[in-house]
């Protein structure tokens, strides 16, 4: 079975209906246990109990970026292969991505207050997330402003394409503009500096949880979009008859 077949709405409804319970259960299990485990970890000698924030902050930040990449892929599939469900999936993903970005920003800001002594600093990492959020908002606004779904899918697809390039470009521009305070990615850093296992395993778990949560939300939201489109399609057919 090729992945293109998922674009057939009926097939998608059937397959997603079968996957959905598992995704929901997995998401609930991993997110809840990851966050609870994370919440129960001991204090860091430097950051005190604020280290517990990492279990929300990092998965959310990761998903914020990944969801945009997923939207880019879905938009490309729509623009090239014209699979309608693909366009709807991109539309369905955007609000989840925007919320993930907001969570990363909010937890970061709250964390920054004790750590850096300020709610907000124009650090490159933070700033590029703010820009990513702007792109999410623009993308969502464009979807809701264009009435004709075919045009909306095409236009948002192009916007996603151009926006991706500019989000990346902005990131480098921002790095040039200001060197920041934020720590680098510690999951990939050399063995010696790695985050201790006490924090690492609950972090992995809640990252998996956030990912599954996204999958579950994406499936439900895409199904919602399909139903809405079907309703509109039935009404349009009636109006024309």
């Amino acid at each position, binding site marked *: 079975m090729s992945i293109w077949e998922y674009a057939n709405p009926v097939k998608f409804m059937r397959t997603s209906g079968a996957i959905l319970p598992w995704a929901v259960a997995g998401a609930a299990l991993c997110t809840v246990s990851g*966050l609870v485990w994370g*919440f*129960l970890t001991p*204090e860091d000698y430097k950051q*005190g*109990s*604020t280290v*517990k*924030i990492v279990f*929300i*902050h990092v998965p*959310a930040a990761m998903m914020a970026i990944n969801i945009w990449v997923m939207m880019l892929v879905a938009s490309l599939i729509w623009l090239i292969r014209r699979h309608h469900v693909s366009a709807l999936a991109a539309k369905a993903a955007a*609000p*989840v991505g925007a*919320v993930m970005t*907001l*969570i990363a920003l*909010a*937890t970061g800001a*709250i*964390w920054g*207050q*004790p750590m850096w002594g300020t709610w907000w600093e124009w650090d490159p990492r933070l700033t590029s997330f703010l820009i990513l959020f702007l792109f999410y908002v623009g993308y969502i606004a464009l979807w809701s402003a264009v009435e004709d779904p075919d045009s909306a899918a095409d236009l948002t697809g192009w916007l996603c394409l151009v926006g991706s390039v500019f989000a990346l470009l902005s990131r480098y521009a921002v790095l040039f503009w200001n060197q920041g305070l934020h720590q680098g990615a510690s999951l990939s850093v050399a063995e010696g500096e790695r985050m201790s296992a006490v924090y690492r395993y609950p972090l992995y778990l809640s990252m998996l949880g956030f990912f599954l*949560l996204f999958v579950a*939300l994406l499936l*439900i*939201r895409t*199904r*919602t979009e399909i*139903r*809405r489109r*079907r*309703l509109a399609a*039935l*009404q349009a057919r*009636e109006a024309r008859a």
Partner: protein
Amino acid sequence: MIELGKYAGTVLAAYGVSLALLVGVIWQTLAANARARRALEAQEKNG
């Protein structure tokens, strides 16, 4: 009850805001889905 030390407010605020946002999208997702399902069923019954 676990001890959060002097950063209790910070940690709780971070978890609180995040959970509120998560619950927000989840609730919106489910509500919209239910609404769409109901509207579609009504249409398919009538039409």
